[in-house]
């Protein structure tokens, strides 16, 4: 695992450069820079791997995979996350008893996934290899549809599953473990913790 320390200025300038909506949004950084996992894995409550429907990455057993660098259709992700109990739904609003996921896509296919906080206090996004953030609205990390813009495009699909399914699939347990890891990191890096709060 590679946890990297980034200064407040470095972190904020970088994140705002590629996610311009964050400049006017309410959000906070919740973990250090870590290249061991990305947003798709974080949506599945995993912080130890990169997930993508391709043989070079971990993907749900038995689910179809795509050759790179072809497009990554949203349907592949809907099928993959169905194995964790998620099903498509229409609204991204918090519903008591349900946990939700949002799938972002641009003209090249899926680009990002965000997981709703268990109690509806915003959305958890892992920004590539960079930090995890918690943002209030899905649009906070949305952006241009063009591939060359290097942004996430728009939300194409929202999925949901019941809390009980989340507990059964081990998501809650893994999230708690991950939060303890971040908490320990914050204790051992007080300057990072200050930088995080400034965000």
């Amino acid at each position, binding site marked *: 695992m590679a946890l990297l320390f980034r200064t407040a200025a470095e972190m904020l300038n970088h994140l705002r450069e590629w996610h311009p909506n964050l400049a006017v949004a309410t959000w906070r950084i919740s973990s250090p820079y870590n290249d061991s996992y990305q947003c798709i*894995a974080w949506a599945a409550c995993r912080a130890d791997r990169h997930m993508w429907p391709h043989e*070079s990455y*971990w993907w749900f057993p038995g689910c179809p995979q795509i050759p790179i660098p072809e497009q990554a259709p949203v349907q592949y992700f809907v099928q993959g996350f169905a194995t964790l109990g998620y099903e498509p739904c229409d609204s991204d609003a918090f519903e008591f008893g349900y946990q939700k996921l949002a799938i972002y896509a641009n003209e090249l296919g899926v680009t990002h996934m965000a997981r709703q906080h268990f109690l509806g206090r915003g959305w958890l996004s892992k*920004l590539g290899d960079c930090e995890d953030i918690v943002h209030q609205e899905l649009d906070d990390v949305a952006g241009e549809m063009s*591939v060359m813009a*290097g942004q996430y495009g728009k939300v194409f699909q929202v999925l949901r599953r019941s809390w009980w399914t989340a507990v059964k699939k081990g998501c809650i347990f893994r999230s708690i473990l991950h939060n303890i890891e971040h908490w320990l990191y914050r204790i051992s890096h007080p300057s990072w913790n200050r930088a995080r709060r400034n965000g």
Partner: protein
Amino acid sequence: MARDEFCDADICTSEWSPRGPSSHGWHVASTEKSARSRQDAIARMIEDIWQMPIEACDATEADLRLEAKFREQAEKWERETRHLSSPTQRMMHPSYQAILGMGAEHRRKVLRLMLRDLQVNRRPWFWALSYLSQNNPVKPSDAGKIDKMIQSWLNWGKAERLL
């Protein structure tokens, strides 16, 4: 210099002299023709010796240029794509494509640069490495686990004498 310090045999530097011309192969034939061919051989040898450092310098300079170009593109690629999670989107970046283009021309050199960069900076060159080497040393059970993927590729690089 102490006599016993460096020589096993019973001889020291001051007593040593090179072999005389008579013991050298060139003096076996003493005709004029052989003398000319000998001169030609010496001329070729001198020419070769003269060319060697020039070629070596050229090669080193080309390598340095390639490395500088690789580093520049790799840094740009990382700076502009590290916030992205989609490997497809990261690969479509012009810098990644430029590096793949460099790899098509200097395959082993670019593979070596990628492996070193993977070792030092952990930039995820996995797909480019697979593409250029036509190989994938990562076990299916390690797919997606970055530390293990890096280690598999570094082991492969050592086996292929690229590291």
